[in-house]
């Protein structure tokens, strides 16, 4: 085989394999949503050990008016564009997250709580904790902590 043919064949294989590899790797990278439902109470108590140190610190800073935090549930969901996931809440309703895909480096989400007829469209970056809070629950409120990965 001549040298030029070898070079052309190598180049072709390189381009083809790169294309197939990058596409397949990107296609197999699902977006992961971690959700924690926390009860923030005004009754002083020890902070739940099930809550990670990082989130406990964040909860204390953001919800300083509450004295204690207790983890009610924790879930990890794989998000798919156009699909919804339900997060059960202890107040006989669900919080619903719909994933609308990714634009640039932000994930597009719709968070809705049907019982309260509230719907919000969000742009959320990966690896950034954010909260939905305020629903009353047992001398305190519910805090939904979200983290996209």
């Amino acid at each position, binding site marked *: 085989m001549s040298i030029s043919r070898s070079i052309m064949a190598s180049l072709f294989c390189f381009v083809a394999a790169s294309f197939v590899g990058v596409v397949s790797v990107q296609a197999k990278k699902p977006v992961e949503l971690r959700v924690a439902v926390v009860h923030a109470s005004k009754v002083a108590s020890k902070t739940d050990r099930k809550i990670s140190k990082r989130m406990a610190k964040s909860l204390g800073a953001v919800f300083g008016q509450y004295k204690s935090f207790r983890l009610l549930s924790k879930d990890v969901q794989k998000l798919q564009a156009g699909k919804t996931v339900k997060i059960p809440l202890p107040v006989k309703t669900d919080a619903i997250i719909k994933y609308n895909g990714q634009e640039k480096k932000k994930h597009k989400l719709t968070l809705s709580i049907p019982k309260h007829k*509230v719907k919000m469209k969000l742009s959320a970056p990966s690896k950034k904790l954010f909260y939905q809070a305020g629903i009353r629950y047992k001398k305190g409120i519910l805090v939904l902590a979200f983290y996209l990965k």
Partner: protein
Amino acid sequence: MTDHENELLNRFLDGELSDADREEFENRMKDSSELVAMRDDFEVIGAMLREHISCESEVADFSGFTAGIDRLIDLQEPAPTAAFESSVTRINEDKTVAGPSNLLARAESWWRRNWTPVMLGAAAAAAVIFFVVKPAEPPTGLQPNDEVAAATGNNGVVVDSISNEGKKTVLVSMPAQQDESTVIWLLDGEEDDQEPVEGEDPI
């Protein structure tokens, strides 16, 4: 006649016996009329076959015989220089010859000739994929959140739109610092307290 004698006779007629064996076999034939008769029959048959083949070969057309063999050899293992030039014409000419086994042989031949560029290309592609997919190392002293914020130019979650048809109040608390988080408050309004007393200024 035994099998051994039959074998000796065949080797005798083909001239494969050594001088000593040949002499011994000729002595044996002197004592065996059956061997002599068999030898005569074989010689007659051989002469007839040679004559027949000679006649056939005069009639047969051997022009292109060598070229046909060359072509079949090329199909099994194409010469590097001839492979490309004649591949298109070969495909058209040899459709009847190309079966599954032939295709397999051609694929093997192709791999033997092209494995080097294929492996080089695959290795280069693997390197590219590795660098494309590998996440960048965060700068020293920066947390993941800071990295994302720096990359996006935004510190946290942004509420694009709110649809509120209920009685609750939605309040979005945006972070003032990088280590803070966005909070979407759904304030469970204290309806009784919010109701102003008649005549009272509501704010």
